[in-house]
C-alpha cells in the first residue's frame, strides 16, 4: 500500500495514473455514451468535428461516429494490452522459474526456445501468426503474447538464479519442503517485483502492436480499433486529417500513461518495496 502512495506522490506517477484513469473510464462508459454498434452508419459522411452536437467528433468516410469509435477502440486497446501482457507475464514467469530452478539440462533447453523467440522480431512473429491463424481478437492477443513472453522469462530466470542461492531457500530445503512448493512459494513471489515493472512496458508494446496489426488490416474486422481507424482515415488524410489524428491522440495518451506509471512504479519499488 505504501508503494501505491509513493506511486501517486511522484508527478510522473500521478500524471500517468490520471491519464490511464480517464482512458479506463472512457472505455468502461462506452456502451452508455455511445450505445449500439460503433461500426453502424450514424450520419452524413466526413462530417468535421464540433459541428453537430449529436456527433461531436464528426464522422468518417462511411458516416460512422468517430467518438463512438474512439471510446469503443479504447476498450479494444486496453483489453488486448492487458490480456496479452498478462498471458506473456504468466507464461514467461513460469518458464523462467522452471529454467532457473530446475538446473542445467532443462534450463538449457528452455532458454534455447526463449532465444528462438527473441531472435525473430516480435512484430514479424505476431504478423505471421495472425496472417496464418486469422484476425479474431483472441488470435491477436495470442500473437502478441507469443512475441512478448521471452523477455519476462529471461528476467525471471535471472532473478530466480540469484534468489535460489539465498539462505531462506536453503532453510526451506533443510526443512524438507517440496521443490515445487519452494519454487512457487519461496522463490517466485520474490522474483516478481522487477517483472511487474516490465509488465507496463509490455502492455504499452502490446497496444502499439495491436494498432499496427489493425493498421495493416490484419486485426479483427468486427471490432473497432484505433489502428483500423487510423488506417481508414489515411485515405483521406489531406481532406479530413482529424480521422487519423483523433485515434492517434488516444493511442499516444494510452501508451504515455502506461509508460509514466511503469516509470514511477519501478522507482517506487526500487526505493523501498524490497528489503
Amino acid at each position, binding site marked *: 500500500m505504501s508503494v501505491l502512495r509513493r506511486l501517486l506522490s511522484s508527478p510522473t506517477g500521478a500524471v500517468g495514473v490520471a491519464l490511464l484513469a480517464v482512458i479506463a473510464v472512457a472505455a468502461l462508459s462506452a456502451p452508455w455514451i455511445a450505445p449500439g454498434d460503433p461500426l453502424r452508419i450514424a450520419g452524413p459522411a466526413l462530417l468535421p468535428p464540433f459541428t453537430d452536437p449529436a456527433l461531436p467528433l464528426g464522422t468518417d468516410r462511411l458516416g460512422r461516429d468517430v467518438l463512438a469509435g474512439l471510446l469503443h477502440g479504447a476498450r479494444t486497446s486496453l483489453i488486448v494490452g492487458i490480456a496479452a501482457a498478462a498471458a506473456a507475464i504468466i507464461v514467461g514467469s513460469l518458464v523462467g522459474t522452471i529454467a532457473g530452478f530446475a538446473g542445467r539440462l532443462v534450463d538449457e533447453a528452455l532458454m534455447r526456445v526463449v532465444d528462438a523467440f527473441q531472435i525473430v522480431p516480435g512484430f514479424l512473429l505476431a504478423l505471421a501468426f495472425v496472417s496464418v491463424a486469422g484476425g479474431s481478437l483472441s488470435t491477436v492477443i495470442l500473437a502478441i503474447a507469443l512475441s512478448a513472453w521471452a523477455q519476462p522469462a529471461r528476467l525471471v530466470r535471472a532473478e530466480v538464479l540469484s534468489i535460489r542461492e539465498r539462505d531462506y531457500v536453503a*532453510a526451506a*530445503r533443510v526443512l524438507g519442503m517440496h521443490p515445487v512448493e519452494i519454487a512457487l512459494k519461496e522463490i517466485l513471489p*520474490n522474483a516478481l517485483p522487477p517483472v511487474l515493472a516490465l509488465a507496463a512496458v509490455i502492455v504499452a508494446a502490446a497496444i502499439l502492436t495491436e494498432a499496427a496489426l489493425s493498421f495493416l488490416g490484419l486485426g479483427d474486422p468486427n471490432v473497432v480499433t484505433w489502428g483500423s481507424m487510423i488506417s481508414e482515415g489515411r485515405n483521406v488524410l489531406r481532406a479530413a486529417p482529424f480521422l487519423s489524428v483523433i485515434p492517434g491522440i488516444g493511442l499516444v495518451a494510452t501508451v504515455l500513461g502506461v509508460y509514466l506509471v511503469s516509470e514511477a512504479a519501478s522507482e517506487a519499488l526500487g526505493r523501498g518495496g524490497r528489503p
Partner: protein
Amino acid sequence: MTAPLLIARDLRRTFASGGRRVAALDGVSLEIAPGETLGLVGASGCGKSTLARVLTRLVAPEAGSVHFMGADWLKLSGSRLRAARRHMQMVFQEPLAAFNPRATVAGVLADALRIHAVVPKAERGAEIARLVDRVGLPAALAGRSIRNISGGQRQRVAIARAIAVRPRLVILDEAVSALDVSVRGRILDLLVDLQRETGVSYLFVSHDLAVVRAVSHRIAVMDAGRIVEEGPAAEVIAAPSTAVLGRLIDAVPRLKGKPQA
C-alpha cells in the same frame, strides 16, 4: 555409551577458486552422540560452513560417508530424504536472510508443522503459540512479519522453526555471531534449556571459542579443511596441542591471563 547419532567419515569437497581447486573439506570425520553438543571452531574459511552444508545435504560431498540415525544419509533422495530431513535441522548465521522476506512468524512455524504433520491440523494454532512461548517470545509477535521484529527475536523464531519438527540434531552455523552480546547469552541459555528438555544434539559451529566453550561438551578444531584437534571441551582448551587452537585461545581475551573463578 549409546551408539552415535551421526557418524561422518572422510568427507571431501573442493571448490573452484580462480581456476584452482581449493579443498574446503579435506577428509573430515566426526561423531555426535545423542544429547551431546559438539562445538566446531576454526578461523574464517577453514571449511566449517561447508561441513555444516554437507551434513544438511545442501552441498554434495565428493567423497566420504555420513550415517545418521543408523541410515546411510547420503543415499537418501526425493521424498524419503525430505521426510528424513525432519530429524536434522539447521539455524543459519544471518537471521534476516534465513527467512522469506514475505513471511510472518506464525506462517514460518505453520510451514514446518504442516510439512512434517507434526501435530493434527486442528492443533496447529495451539502448537505455534506453544513454540512462540517456548523460545521466549511474546504471543502477540506471532502475527508479525519477520521483517518487523528485531535480530534477536528473529533468531529465536529460527530456533523455534528448527525445534518445531522435533529433530534429533540441530546444526547451528554461527547462530549467535550476528547478535549483540546481551542477546547472545540469552539465546545460548535457551539452547541449553532445550537440550535438557528434549535430548536434542547440537553441532555448534562458530569462530568464537568463548561461545563454543560455553555450550559444548566436546570441541573439534578445524583448519584448512581438516579437523586438527578434538576432545572434551575443558581438556582441549586447557592443553591446546596445535598452533591453530593456541591462536584461537589467544583471540579470547577473557580466557587468557585473567584468573578464572
